[in-house]
Protein backbone atom coordinates (compact mmCIF):
# COMPACT_ATOMS: atom_id res chain seq x y z
CA UNK A 1 0.00 0.00 0.00
CA UNK A 2 2.87 2.30 0.81
CA UNK A 3 4.09 2.07 -2.76
CA UNK A 4 0.72 3.15 -4.08
CA UNK A 5 0.70 6.09 -1.66
CA UNK A 6 4.14 7.14 -2.79
CA UNK A 7 3.17 6.89 -6.43
CA UNK A 8 0.03 8.95 -5.90
CA UNK A 9 2.07 11.59 -4.10
CA UNK A 10 4.76 11.61 -6.73
CA UNK A 11 2.39 11.87 -9.64
CA UNK A 12 -0.19 14.04 -7.89
CA UNK A 13 0.45 16.93 -10.26
CA UNK A 14 -0.35 14.78 -13.29
CA UNK A 15 -3.35 13.11 -11.68
CA UNK A 16 -4.75 16.47 -10.59
CA UNK A 17 -4.60 17.87 -14.13
CA UNK A 18 -6.27 14.80 -15.63
CA UNK A 19 -9.02 14.77 -12.99
CA UNK A 20 -9.69 18.46 -13.61
CA UNK A 21 -9.98 17.82 -17.33
CA UNK A 22 -12.44 14.95 -16.81
CA UNK A 23 -14.53 17.10 -14.45
CA UNK A 24 -14.55 20.01 -16.91
CA UNK A 25 -15.61 17.74 -19.76
CA UNK A 26 -18.64 16.61 -17.74
CA UNK A 27 -19.86 20.12 -16.84
CA UNK A 28 -21.08 21.33 -20.22
CA UNK A 29 -20.57 20.79 -23.93
CA UNK A 30 -18.77 24.13 -24.22
CA UNK A 31 -16.15 22.92 -21.76
CA UNK A 32 -16.08 19.55 -23.48
CA UNK A 33 -14.97 21.31 -26.64
CA UNK A 34 -12.12 23.05 -24.82
CA UNK A 35 -11.08 19.81 -23.12
CA UNK A 36 -11.07 18.10 -26.50
CA UNK A 37 -8.66 20.70 -27.92
CA UNK A 38 -6.46 20.64 -24.84
CA UNK A 39 -6.21 16.87 -25.03
CA UNK A 40 -5.55 16.89 -28.75
CA UNK A 41 -2.70 19.35 -28.28
CA UNK A 42 -1.46 17.32 -25.32
CA UNK A 43 -1.29 14.13 -27.33
CA UNK A 44 0.63 15.68 -30.22
CA UNK A 45 3.00 17.69 -28.04
CA UNK A 46 3.66 14.89 -25.55
CA UNK A 47 4.54 12.56 -28.37
CA UNK A 48 6.79 15.18 -29.93
CA UNK A 49 8.44 15.64 -26.54
CA UNK A 50 9.79 12.08 -26.67
CA UNK A 51 11.92 12.84 -29.71
CA UNK A 52 12.40 16.59 -29.26
CA UNK A 53 12.66 16.91 -25.48
CA UNK A 54 14.64 13.77 -24.71
CA UNK A 55 16.45 13.23 -28.00
CA UNK A 56 17.04 16.87 -28.89
CA UNK A 57 15.80 16.23 -32.43
CA UNK A 58 13.53 19.05 -33.54
CA UNK A 59 10.99 17.29 -35.70
CA UNK A 60 9.21 20.00 -37.70
CA UNK A 61 7.28 17.34 -39.60
CA UNK A 62 5.12 16.11 -36.74
CA UNK A 63 2.02 17.19 -38.67
CA UNK A 64 2.72 14.44 -41.22
CA UNK A 65 1.87 11.76 -38.66
CA UNK A 66 -1.46 13.40 -37.89
CA UNK A 67 -2.19 13.53 -41.61
CA UNK A 68 -1.29 9.90 -42.16
CA UNK A 69 -3.44 8.83 -39.21
CA UNK A 70 -6.36 10.84 -40.58
CA UNK A 71 -5.99 9.43 -44.08
CA UNK A 72 -5.69 5.80 -42.94
CA UNK A 73 -8.72 6.34 -40.72
CA UNK A 74 -10.73 7.78 -43.60
CA UNK A 75 -9.74 5.07 -46.07
CA UNK A 76 -10.63 2.29 -43.63
CA UNK A 77 -13.91 3.87 -42.55
CA UNK A 78 -14.95 4.17 -46.18
CA UNK A 79 -14.35 0.42 -46.43
CA UNK A 80 -16.83 -0.04 -43.60
CA UNK A 81 -14.45 -0.77 -40.74
CA UNK A 82 -15.28 0.23 -37.17
CA UNK A 83 -14.03 3.81 -36.66
CA UNK A 84 -12.30 3.08 -33.35
CA UNK A 85 -10.33 0.20 -34.81
CA UNK A 86 -9.49 2.45 -37.77
CA UNK A 87 -8.01 5.01 -35.38
CA UNK A 88 -5.68 2.43 -33.88
CA UNK A 89 -4.79 1.26 -37.39
CA UNK A 90 -4.01 4.88 -38.23
CA UNK A 91 -1.59 5.02 -35.32
CA UNK A 92 0.12 1.81 -36.35
CA UNK A 93 0.46 2.85 -40.00
CA UNK A 94 1.76 6.22 -38.87
CA UNK A 95 4.44 4.45 -36.82
CA UNK A 96 5.34 2.30 -39.79
CA UNK A 97 5.71 5.39 -41.97
CA UNK A 98 7.79 6.98 -39.22
CA UNK A 99 10.09 3.96 -39.42
CA UNK A 100 10.46 4.43 -43.18
CA UNK A 101 11.00 8.20 -42.92
CA UNK A 102 13.26 7.69 -39.93
CA UNK A 103 15.65 5.30 -41.66
CA UNK A 104 16.39 8.05 -44.15
CA UNK A 105 16.00 11.26 -42.18
CA UNK A 106 17.52 10.22 -38.87
CA UNK A 107 20.93 9.80 -40.46
CA UNK A 108 21.00 13.58 -40.71
CA UNK A 109 21.85 15.77 -37.77
CA UNK A 110 21.02 19.18 -36.40
CA UNK A 111 19.76 21.67 -38.97
CA UNK A 112 19.72 19.12 -41.79
CA UNK A 113 17.31 16.96 -39.83
CA UNK A 114 15.13 20.02 -39.23
CA UNK A 115 15.23 21.02 -42.91
CA UNK A 116 14.25 17.55 -44.05
CA UNK A 117 11.47 17.04 -41.53
CA UNK A 118 10.07 20.48 -42.26
CA UNK A 119 10.11 19.63 -45.95
CA UNK A 120 8.23 16.36 -45.39
CA UNK A 121 5.07 18.37 -44.66
CA UNK A 122 4.73 20.01 -48.11
CA UNK A 123 6.20 16.89 -49.72
CA UNK A 124 3.50 14.57 -48.38
CA UNK A 125 0.83 17.17 -49.04
CA UNK A 126 1.83 17.60 -52.67
CA UNK A 127 2.29 13.86 -53.11
CA UNK A 128 -1.36 13.41 -52.15
CA UNK A 129 -2.59 16.36 -54.25
CA UNK A 130 -0.34 15.67 -57.22
CA UNK A 131 -0.69 11.88 -57.22
CA UNK A 132 -4.46 12.22 -56.77
CA UNK A 133 -4.17 9.75 -53.90
CA UNK A 134 -7.33 9.22 -51.85
CA UNK A 135 -9.30 11.93 -53.61
CA UNK A 136 -6.43 14.33 -54.27
CA UNK A 137 -6.94 17.94 -53.27
CA UNK A 138 -10.67 17.44 -52.60
CA UNK A 139 -10.05 14.69 -50.07
CA UNK A 140 -12.66 12.34 -48.63
CA UNK A 141 -15.88 13.35 -46.91
CA UNK A 142 -16.90 11.06 -44.10
CA UNK A 143 -20.24 12.34 -42.86
CA UNK A 144 -22.09 9.65 -44.78
CA UNK A 145 -20.19 6.92 -42.95
CA UNK A 146 -19.82 8.43 -39.50
CA UNK A 147 -22.70 10.85 -39.04
CA UNK A 148 -24.61 8.47 -36.74
CA UNK A 149 -21.65 7.12 -34.82
CA UNK A 150 -20.45 10.60 -33.82
CA UNK A 151 -20.09 11.02 -30.07
CA UNK A 152 -18.03 13.95 -28.78
CA UNK A 153 -17.53 12.34 -25.35
CA UNK A 154 -16.11 9.20 -26.91
CA UNK A 155 -13.65 11.22 -29.02
CA UNK A 156 -12.52 13.26 -26.03
CA UNK A 157 -12.02 10.16 -23.90
CA UNK A 158 -10.05 8.44 -26.64
CA UNK A 159 -7.72 11.42 -26.60
CA UNK A 160 -7.66 11.25 -22.79
CA UNK A 161 -6.70 7.57 -22.86
CA UNK A 162 -4.04 8.29 -25.50
CA UNK A 163 -2.69 11.13 -23.42
CA UNK A 164 -2.53 9.04 -20.24
CA UNK A 165 -0.93 6.19 -22.19
CA UNK A 166 1.70 8.47 -23.62
CA UNK A 167 2.37 9.99 -20.19
CA UNK A 168 2.99 6.53 -18.77
CA UNK A 169 5.11 5.71 -21.81
CA UNK A 170 7.14 8.89 -21.34
CA UNK A 171 7.72 8.08 -17.66
CA UNK A 172 8.80 4.56 -18.60
CA UNK A 173 11.03 5.79 -21.43
CA UNK A 174 12.70 8.52 -19.38
CA UNK A 175 13.74 5.98 -16.73
CA UNK A 176 14.82 3.32 -19.23
CA UNK A 177 18.14 2.73 -21.00
CA UNK A 178 16.50 4.17 -24.13
CA UNK A 179 15.71 7.38 -22.28
CA UNK A 180 19.24 7.74 -20.93
CA UNK A 181 20.68 7.07 -24.37
CA UNK A 182 18.41 9.71 -25.87
CA UNK A 183 19.39 12.25 -23.23
CA UNK A 184 23.05 11.40 -23.80
CA UNK A 185 22.79 11.99 -27.52
CA UNK A 186 20.87 15.19 -26.93
CA UNK A 187 23.76 16.53 -24.87
CA UNK A 188 26.49 15.40 -27.23
CA UNK A 189 25.92 13.16 -30.19
CA UNK A 190 29.56 12.25 -30.77
CA UNK A 191 30.31 11.52 -27.12
CA UNK A 192 27.18 9.37 -26.85
CA UNK A 193 28.20 7.42 -29.92
CA UNK A 194 31.76 6.83 -28.72
CA UNK A 195 30.42 5.75 -25.31
CA UNK A 196 28.65 2.89 -27.01
CA UNK A 197 25.14 4.25 -27.50
CA UNK A 198 23.59 2.82 -30.65
CA UNK A 199 22.38 6.25 -31.67
CA UNK A 200 20.61 5.35 -34.90
CA UNK A 201 18.64 2.54 -33.24
CA UNK A 202 17.64 4.77 -30.32
CA UNK A 203 16.56 7.57 -32.58
CA UNK A 204 14.49 5.29 -34.80
CA UNK A 205 12.75 3.67 -31.81
CA UNK A 206 11.99 7.08 -30.31
CA UNK A 207 10.74 8.30 -33.69
CA UNK A 208 8.41 5.30 -34.02
CA UNK A 209 7.03 5.80 -30.50
CA UNK A 210 6.52 9.49 -31.15
CA UNK A 211 4.52 8.77 -34.32
CA UNK A 212 2.06 6.29 -32.79
CA UNK A 213 -0.31 8.60 -30.91
CA UNK A 214 -0.39 11.49 -33.40
CA UNK A 215 -1.68 8.85 -35.83
CA UNK A 216 -4.51 8.00 -33.44
CA UNK A 217 -5.16 11.72 -32.87
CA UNK A 218 -5.31 12.20 -36.63
CA UNK A 219 -8.12 9.64 -36.75
CA UNK A 220 -9.95 11.52 -34.00
CA UNK A 221 -9.47 14.77 -35.90
CA UNK A 222 -10.90 13.23 -39.07
CA UNK A 223 -13.85 11.89 -37.09
CA UNK A 224 -14.44 15.32 -35.57
CA UNK A 225 -14.42 17.29 -38.83
CA UNK A 226 -15.85 14.50 -41.07
CA UNK A 227 -13.56 15.58 -43.86
CA UNK A 228 -10.02 14.58 -44.73
CA UNK A 229 -8.20 16.84 -47.15
CA UNK A 230 -4.50 17.65 -47.54
CA UNK A 231 -4.82 21.33 -46.64
CA UNK A 232 -6.53 20.71 -43.30
CA UNK A 233 -5.06 17.49 -41.92
CA UNK A 234 -1.45 17.88 -43.11
CA UNK A 235 -1.11 21.38 -41.76
CA UNK A 236 2.20 22.86 -40.69
CA UNK A 237 0.27 24.65 -37.93
CA UNK A 238 0.11 21.36 -35.98
CA UNK A 239 3.89 21.13 -36.06
CA UNK A 240 4.20 24.72 -34.93
CA UNK A 241 1.73 24.25 -32.09
CA UNK A 242 3.37 21.04 -30.91
CA UNK A 243 6.84 22.63 -30.83
CA UNK A 244 5.48 25.74 -29.14
CA UNK A 245 3.72 23.73 -26.43
CA UNK A 246 6.78 21.60 -25.70
CA UNK A 247 8.94 24.72 -25.40
CA UNK A 248 6.30 26.60 -23.42
CA UNK A 249 5.82 23.82 -20.89
CA UNK A 250 9.39 22.67 -20.60
CA UNK A 251 11.22 20.51 -23.06
CA UNK A 252 12.42 17.14 -21.79
CA UNK A 253 10.07 16.89 -18.80
CA UNK A 254 7.02 14.65 -18.53
CA UNK A 255 4.66 17.24 -17.11
CA UNK A 256 5.94 20.09 -19.29
CA UNK A 257 3.85 19.45 -22.42
CA UNK A 258 0.77 18.78 -20.25
CA UNK A 259 1.05 22.14 -18.50
CA UNK A 260 2.06 23.71 -21.81
CA UNK A 261 -1.05 22.43 -23.60
CA UNK A 262 -3.38 23.72 -20.89
CA UNK A 263 -1.69 27.13 -20.76
CA UNK A 264 -1.55 27.33 -24.56
CA UNK A 265 -5.24 26.56 -25.02
CA UNK A 266 -6.28 29.05 -22.34
CA UNK A 267 -4.03 31.73 -23.87
CA UNK A 268 -5.30 30.95 -27.35
CA UNK A 269 -8.89 31.22 -26.20
CA UNK A 270 -8.25 34.56 -24.53
CA UNK A 271 -6.39 35.88 -27.57
CA UNK A 272 -9.17 34.73 -29.89
CA UNK A 273 -11.64 36.64 -27.75
CA UNK A 274 -9.67 39.86 -27.37
CA UNK A 275 -7.33 39.91 -30.38
CA UNK A 276 -9.04 37.81 -33.05
CA UNK A 277 -6.78 36.87 -35.94
CA UNK A 278 -3.59 37.70 -34.12
CA UNK A 279 -3.00 34.40 -32.26
CA UNK A 280 -0.27 33.00 -34.48
CA UNK A 281 1.51 36.35 -34.64
CA UNK A 282 1.58 36.56 -30.87
CA UNK A 283 2.53 32.91 -30.46
CA UNK A 284 5.36 33.24 -32.95
CA UNK A 285 6.79 36.13 -30.99
CA UNK A 286 6.15 34.20 -27.77
CA UNK A 287 8.34 31.32 -28.97
CA UNK A 288 11.11 33.77 -29.80
CA UNK A 289 10.77 35.25 -26.32
CA UNK A 290 10.72 31.86 -24.58
CA UNK A 291 13.75 30.59 -26.39
CA UNK A 292 15.72 33.78 -25.67
CA UNK A 293 14.65 34.36 -22.08
CA UNK A 294 13.43 31.08 -20.56
CA UNK A 295 14.59 28.11 -22.63
CA UNK A 296 13.43 25.71 -19.91
CA UNK A 297 9.81 26.80 -20.16
CA UNK A 298 7.20 27.06 -17.42
CA UNK A 299 8.43 23.97 -15.60
CA UNK A 300 11.95 25.38 -15.47
CA UNK A 301 10.68 28.71 -14.13
CA UNK A 302 8.51 27.03 -11.48
CA UNK A 303 11.36 24.75 -10.43
CA UNK A 304 13.64 27.70 -9.88
CA UNK A 305 11.05 29.78 -8.08
CA UNK A 306 9.28 27.23 -5.88
CA UNK A 307 11.67 24.65 -4.47
CA UNK A 308 8.87 22.75 -2.73
CA UNK A 309 7.12 22.07 -6.02
CA UNK A 310 10.17 20.39 -7.42
CA UNK A 311 9.16 16.82 -6.60
CA UNK A 312 5.84 17.25 -8.44
CA UNK A 313 7.37 18.65 -11.59
CA UNK A 314 8.64 15.47 -13.14
Amino acid at each position, binding site marked *: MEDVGDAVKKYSGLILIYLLLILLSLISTAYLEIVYYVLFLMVISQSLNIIMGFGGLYNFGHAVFIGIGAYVFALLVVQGLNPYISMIAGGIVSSAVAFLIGIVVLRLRGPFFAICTL*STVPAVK*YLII*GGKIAGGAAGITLFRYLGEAYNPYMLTYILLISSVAITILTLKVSASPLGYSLKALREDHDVAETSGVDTTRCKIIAFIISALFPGVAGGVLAFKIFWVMPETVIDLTWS*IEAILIVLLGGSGTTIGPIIGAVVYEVLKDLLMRYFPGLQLLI*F*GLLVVAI*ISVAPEGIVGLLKNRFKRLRSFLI
Partner: protein
Amino acid sequence: MFELVFQVLVYGVIIGAVYGLATMGLNLIWGVMRVVNFTHAELLTLGAYTAYWAWVLIGLNPIASIPLSALLGFVIGIFIFYIIIYRLLFSPDIHSTLVATFALGVALAELMKVLWTADYRGVPWALGVIKFSWFSIPITYVFTFISCILIIIIVYFILYRTYFGKSIRAVIWDSGAAAICGVNVKATLALGFALGSALAFIGGSLIVIYLPTGINPYMGHLYLLRCFVIAVVGGLGNPWGALAGGLVLGLLEQVSPIVLGYIPGVEPLSLTPFLSFLILIIVLLIMPEGILGRRR
Protein backbone atom coordinates in the same frame (compact mmCIF):
# COMPACT_ATOMS: atom_id res chain seq x y z
CA MET B 1 10.04 18.98 -80.22
CA PHE B 2 13.14 21.13 -80.64
CA GLU B 3 11.15 24.28 -79.95
CA LEU B 4 9.77 22.78 -76.76
CA VAL B 5 13.19 21.70 -75.52
CA PHE B 6 14.65 25.12 -76.28
CA GLN B 7 11.78 26.93 -74.60
CA VAL B 8 12.05 24.76 -71.51
CA LEU B 9 15.81 25.28 -71.30
CA VAL B 10 15.58 29.06 -71.63
CA TYR B 11 12.73 29.42 -69.14
CA GLY B 12 14.46 27.00 -66.77
CA VAL B 13 17.70 28.97 -66.85
CA ILE B 14 15.94 32.31 -66.32
CA ILE B 15 13.80 31.10 -63.44
CA GLY B 16 16.77 29.18 -62.09
CA ALA B 17 18.83 32.38 -61.95
CA VAL B 18 16.10 34.09 -59.93
CA TYR B 19 15.76 31.10 -57.60
CA GLY B 20 19.53 31.01 -57.18
CA LEU B 21 19.63 34.69 -56.32
CA ALA B 22 16.76 34.24 -53.88
CA THR B 23 18.60 31.41 -52.11
CA MET B 24 22.07 32.97 -52.04
CA GLY B 25 21.21 34.77 -48.81
CA LEU B 26 20.31 31.51 -47.06
CA ASN B 27 23.66 30.01 -48.03
CA LEU B 28 25.57 33.11 -47.07
CA ILE B 29 24.00 33.23 -43.61
CA TRP B 30 24.63 29.54 -43.00
CA GLY B 31 28.20 29.96 -44.16
CA VAL B 32 28.91 32.95 -41.96
CA MET B 33 27.19 31.98 -38.73
CA ARG B 34 26.00 28.37 -39.03
CA VAL B 35 22.37 29.46 -38.75
CA VAL B 36 19.72 28.03 -41.04
CA ASN B 37 17.54 31.05 -41.46
CA PHE B 38 14.02 29.64 -41.44
CA THR B 39 12.73 33.21 -41.77
CA HIS B 40 14.23 33.36 -45.26
CA ALA B 41 11.00 32.52 -47.06
CA GLU B 42 9.09 35.20 -45.17
CA LEU B 43 11.79 37.76 -45.97
CA LEU B 44 11.35 36.75 -49.59
CA THR B 45 7.60 37.25 -49.28
CA LEU B 46 8.22 40.68 -47.77
CA GLY B 47 10.40 41.46 -50.79
CA ALA B 48 7.55 40.43 -53.06
CA TYR B 49 5.20 42.72 -51.15
CA THR B 50 7.73 45.54 -51.41
CA ALA B 51 7.66 45.19 -55.18
CA TYR B 52 3.87 45.05 -55.13
CA TRP B 53 3.46 48.19 -53.02
CA ALA B 54 6.12 50.02 -55.00
CA TRP B 55 4.06 49.24 -58.10
CA VAL B 56 0.72 50.21 -56.58
CA LEU B 57 1.76 53.28 -54.61
CA ILE B 58 4.66 54.81 -56.54
CA GLY B 59 4.29 53.13 -59.90
CA LEU B 60 7.76 51.57 -59.89
CA ASN B 61 8.12 48.33 -61.82
CA PRO B 62 9.58 45.33 -59.92
CA ILE B 63 13.07 45.81 -61.37
CA ALA B 64 13.16 49.50 -60.54
CA SER B 65 12.08 48.70 -57.00
CA ILE B 66 15.11 46.47 -56.37
CA PRO B 67 17.20 49.19 -54.65
CA LEU B 68 14.28 49.98 -52.38
CA SER B 69 13.69 46.36 -51.42
CA ALA B 70 17.43 45.74 -50.96
CA LEU B 71 17.61 48.68 -48.58
CA LEU B 72 14.55 47.51 -46.65
CA GLY B 73 15.92 43.99 -46.48
CA PHE B 74 19.24 45.26 -45.21
CA VAL B 75 17.65 47.31 -42.43
CA ILE B 76 15.26 44.54 -41.39
CA GLY B 77 18.15 42.06 -41.44
CA ILE B 78 20.19 44.25 -39.08
CA PHE B 79 17.20 44.49 -36.72
CA ILE B 80 16.56 40.75 -36.73
CA PHE B 81 20.22 40.04 -36.15
CA TYR B 82 20.64 42.30 -33.14
CA ILE B 83 17.27 41.62 -31.53
CA ILE B 84 17.07 37.86 -31.98
CA ILE B 85 19.95 36.09 -33.65
CA TYR B 86 22.96 37.49 -31.85
CA ARG B 87 21.89 36.56 -28.33
CA LEU B 88 21.11 33.01 -29.44
CA LEU B 89 24.27 32.42 -31.46
CA PHE B 90 26.26 31.20 -28.48
CA SER B 91 23.48 29.38 -26.66
CA PRO B 92 24.35 25.78 -25.71
CA ASP B 93 21.44 24.37 -27.70
CA ILE B 94 22.35 24.60 -31.38
CA HIS B 95 18.67 24.42 -32.27
CA SER B 96 17.62 27.62 -30.58
CA THR B 97 18.36 29.89 -33.56
CA LEU B 98 16.52 27.43 -35.76
CA VAL B 99 13.37 27.44 -33.65
CA ALA B 100 13.57 31.20 -33.13
CA THR B 101 13.90 32.00 -36.84
CA PHE B 102 11.11 29.53 -37.63
CA ALA B 103 8.80 31.15 -35.08
CA LEU B 104 9.75 34.59 -36.34
CA GLY B 105 8.81 33.44 -39.84
CA VAL B 106 5.39 32.31 -38.62
CA ALA B 107 4.90 35.64 -36.85
CA LEU B 108 5.96 37.63 -39.93
CA ALA B 109 3.58 35.70 -42.17
CA GLU B 110 0.75 36.40 -39.74
CA LEU B 111 1.77 40.05 -39.54
CA MET B 112 1.55 40.29 -43.33
CA LYS B 113 -1.87 38.64 -43.22
CA VAL B 114 -3.07 41.13 -40.63
CA LEU B 115 -1.66 44.12 -42.48
CA TRP B 116 -2.48 43.21 -46.05
CA THR B 117 -5.10 40.40 -45.77
CA ALA B 118 -4.65 36.96 -47.30
CA ASP B 119 -5.74 38.07 -50.79
CA TYR B 120 -3.76 36.93 -53.77
CA ARG B 121 -2.14 39.92 -55.41
CA GLY B 122 0.06 40.44 -58.41
CA VAL B 123 1.92 43.02 -60.44
CA PRO B 124 0.53 43.19 -63.98
CA TRP B 125 3.77 44.38 -65.49
CA ALA B 126 4.11 43.52 -69.17
CA LEU B 127 6.24 44.98 -71.94
CA GLY B 128 5.27 42.72 -74.78
CA VAL B 129 6.92 39.64 -76.19
CA ILE B 130 10.00 39.07 -78.30
CA LYS B 131 9.00 36.71 -81.09
CA PHE B 132 11.30 34.57 -83.11
CA SER B 133 9.98 32.29 -85.77
CA TRP B 134 9.98 29.28 -83.46
CA PHE B 135 10.23 30.74 -80.03
CA SER B 136 8.96 33.66 -77.97
CA ILE B 137 9.81 35.18 -74.63
CA PRO B 138 8.33 38.09 -72.63
CA ILE B 139 10.60 41.12 -72.50
CA THR B 140 10.16 41.35 -68.71
CA TYR B 141 11.82 37.92 -68.40
CA VAL B 142 14.82 39.16 -70.35
CA PHE B 143 15.12 42.21 -68.10
CA THR B 144 14.84 39.98 -65.04
CA PHE B 145 17.60 37.75 -66.25
CA ILE B 146 19.86 40.71 -66.99
CA SER B 147 19.24 42.27 -63.59
CA CYS B 148 19.89 38.90 -61.93
CA ILE B 149 23.26 38.70 -63.63
CA LEU B 150 24.04 42.30 -62.63
CA ILE B 151 23.16 41.67 -59.00
CA ILE B 152 25.23 38.52 -58.94
CA ILE B 153 28.17 40.53 -60.29
CA ILE B 154 27.60 43.14 -57.58
CA VAL B 155 27.50 40.44 -54.90
CA TYR B 156 30.70 38.96 -56.31
CA PHE B 157 32.26 42.40 -56.17
CA ILE B 158 31.14 42.90 -52.55
CA LEU B 159 32.44 39.49 -51.49
CA TYR B 160 35.78 39.54 -53.34
CA ARG B 161 36.76 43.17 -53.78
CA THR B 162 35.83 44.91 -50.54
CA TYR B 163 37.16 44.71 -46.98
CA PHE B 164 33.72 43.68 -45.76
CA GLY B 165 33.59 40.82 -48.24
CA LYS B 166 37.06 39.73 -47.28
CA SER B 167 36.09 39.64 -43.62
CA ILE B 168 32.93 37.68 -44.45
CA ARG B 169 34.99 35.10 -46.28
CA ALA B 170 37.46 35.04 -43.40
CA VAL B 171 34.65 34.40 -40.92
CA ILE B 172 33.24 31.64 -43.13
CA TRP B 173 36.68 30.04 -43.18
CA ASP B 174 37.45 30.32 -39.46
CA SER B 175 35.79 32.90 -37.25
CA GLY B 176 38.25 32.47 -34.38
CA ALA B 177 41.29 33.07 -36.54
CA ALA B 178 39.52 36.00 -38.21
CA ALA B 179 38.92 37.58 -34.81
CA ILE B 180 42.60 37.16 -33.91
CA CYS B 181 43.58 38.91 -37.14
CA GLY B 182 41.52 41.93 -36.14
CA VAL B 183 38.25 41.28 -37.94
CA ASN B 184 35.30 42.71 -36.06
CA VAL B 185 33.37 39.44 -36.03
CA LYS B 186 30.16 40.81 -34.53
CA ALA B 187 29.86 43.56 -37.13
CA THR B 188 30.74 41.10 -39.90
CA LEU B 189 28.05 38.70 -38.71
CA ALA B 190 25.51 41.53 -38.59
CA LEU B 191 26.40 42.76 -42.06
CA GLY B 192 26.46 39.20 -43.38
CA PHE B 193 22.98 38.56 -42.03
CA ALA B 194 21.78 41.87 -43.42
CA LEU B 195 23.27 41.09 -46.83
CA GLY B 196 21.56 37.69 -46.78
CA SER B 197 18.27 39.31 -45.87
CA ALA B 198 18.68 41.94 -48.60
CA LEU B 199 19.30 39.16 -51.14
CA ALA B 200 16.11 37.42 -49.99
CA PHE B 201 14.20 40.67 -50.49
CA ILE B 202 15.66 41.16 -53.97
CA GLY B 203 14.83 37.56 -54.86
CA GLY B 204 11.26 38.14 -53.70
CA SER B 205 10.96 41.30 -55.80
CA LEU B 206 12.14 39.47 -58.90
CA ILE B 207 9.94 36.43 -58.32
CA VAL B 208 6.95 38.77 -58.55
CA ILE B 209 7.54 38.98 -62.28
CA TYR B 210 6.77 35.26 -62.67
CA LEU B 211 3.70 35.40 -60.46
CA PRO B 212 0.93 37.32 -62.20
CA THR B 213 -1.37 36.75 -59.20
CA GLY B 214 0.61 34.84 -56.65
CA ILE B 215 1.66 37.19 -53.86
CA ASN B 216 0.05 36.25 -50.57
CA PRO B 217 1.34 36.06 -46.98
CA TYR B 218 1.72 32.27 -47.05
CA MET B 219 3.58 31.92 -50.35
CA GLY B 220 6.70 31.42 -48.23
CA HIS B 221 5.76 27.83 -47.32
CA LEU B 222 6.48 26.57 -50.81
CA TYR B 223 9.49 28.82 -51.31
CA LEU B 224 11.06 27.55 -48.10
CA LEU B 225 11.05 24.03 -49.55
CA ARG B 226 12.44 25.38 -52.82
CA CYS B 227 15.15 27.35 -51.03
CA PHE B 228 16.18 24.31 -49.00
CA VAL B 229 16.37 22.13 -52.08
CA ILE B 230 18.45 24.74 -53.88
CA ALA B 231 20.71 25.39 -50.91
CA VAL B 232 21.31 21.73 -50.22
CA VAL B 233 21.80 20.77 -53.87
CA GLY B 234 24.30 23.58 -54.32
CA GLY B 235 25.95 23.02 -50.96
CA LEU B 236 24.89 25.00 -47.87
CA GLY B 237 27.31 27.78 -47.08
CA ASN B 238 28.52 28.30 -50.61
CA PRO B 239 26.84 31.38 -52.16
CA TRP B 240 27.74 30.24 -55.69
CA GLY B 241 26.32 26.80 -54.98
CA ALA B 242 22.93 28.49 -54.69
CA LEU B 243 23.18 29.53 -58.33
CA ALA B 244 23.97 25.98 -59.42
CA GLY B 245 21.15 24.64 -57.25
CA GLY B 246 18.82 27.30 -58.61
CA LEU B 247 19.55 26.25 -62.17
CA VAL B 248 18.93 22.60 -61.27
CA LEU B 249 15.58 23.39 -59.65
CA GLY B 250 14.57 25.88 -62.33
CA LEU B 251 15.14 23.29 -65.03
CA LEU B 252 13.47 20.56 -62.97
CA GLU B 253 10.36 22.69 -62.46
CA GLN B 254 10.15 23.36 -66.19
CA VAL B 255 10.86 19.81 -67.32
CA SER B 256 9.01 17.72 -64.76
CA PRO B 257 5.43 18.90 -65.50
CA ILE B 258 5.97 17.96 -69.14
CA VAL B 259 7.45 14.57 -68.34
CA LEU B 260 4.95 13.84 -65.57
CA GLY B 261 2.17 14.81 -67.95
CA TYR B 262 2.70 11.49 -69.70
CA ILE B 263 1.78 9.58 -66.54
CA PRO B 264 -1.99 9.12 -66.48
CA GLY B 265 -4.00 10.09 -63.40
CA VAL B 266 -1.64 12.55 -61.77
CA GLU B 267 -1.50 16.31 -61.47
CA PRO B 268 1.94 17.13 -62.84
CA LEU B 269 2.23 20.64 -61.38
CA SER B 270 1.50 19.55 -57.82
CA LEU B 271 3.76 16.53 -58.00
CA THR B 272 6.80 18.68 -58.79
CA PRO B 273 7.37 19.85 -55.17
CA PHE B 274 7.41 16.20 -54.13
CA LEU B 275 10.06 15.46 -56.76
CA SER B 276 12.17 18.34 -55.49
CA PHE B 277 11.83 16.91 -51.96
CA LEU B 278 13.13 13.55 -53.24
CA ILE B 279 16.09 15.36 -54.74
CA LEU B 280 16.69 17.10 -51.39
CA ILE B 281 16.79 13.76 -49.56
CA ILE B 282 18.93 12.02 -52.16
CA VAL B 283 21.48 14.83 -52.29
CA LEU B 284 21.67 15.02 -48.50
CA LEU B 285 22.32 11.31 -48.24
CA ILE B 286 24.72 10.88 -51.15
CA MET B 287 26.62 14.15 -51.28
CA PRO B 288 25.84 16.28 -48.24
CA GLU B 289 28.30 18.94 -49.40
CA GLY B 290 26.22 19.65 -52.50
CA ILE B 291 27.07 19.28 -56.16
CA LEU B 292 29.76 21.94 -56.02
CA GLY B 293 31.31 20.83 -52.74
CA ARG B 294 32.56 23.28 -50.16
CA ARG B 295 34.46 25.59 -52.44
CA ARG B 296 34.87 29.12 -51.23
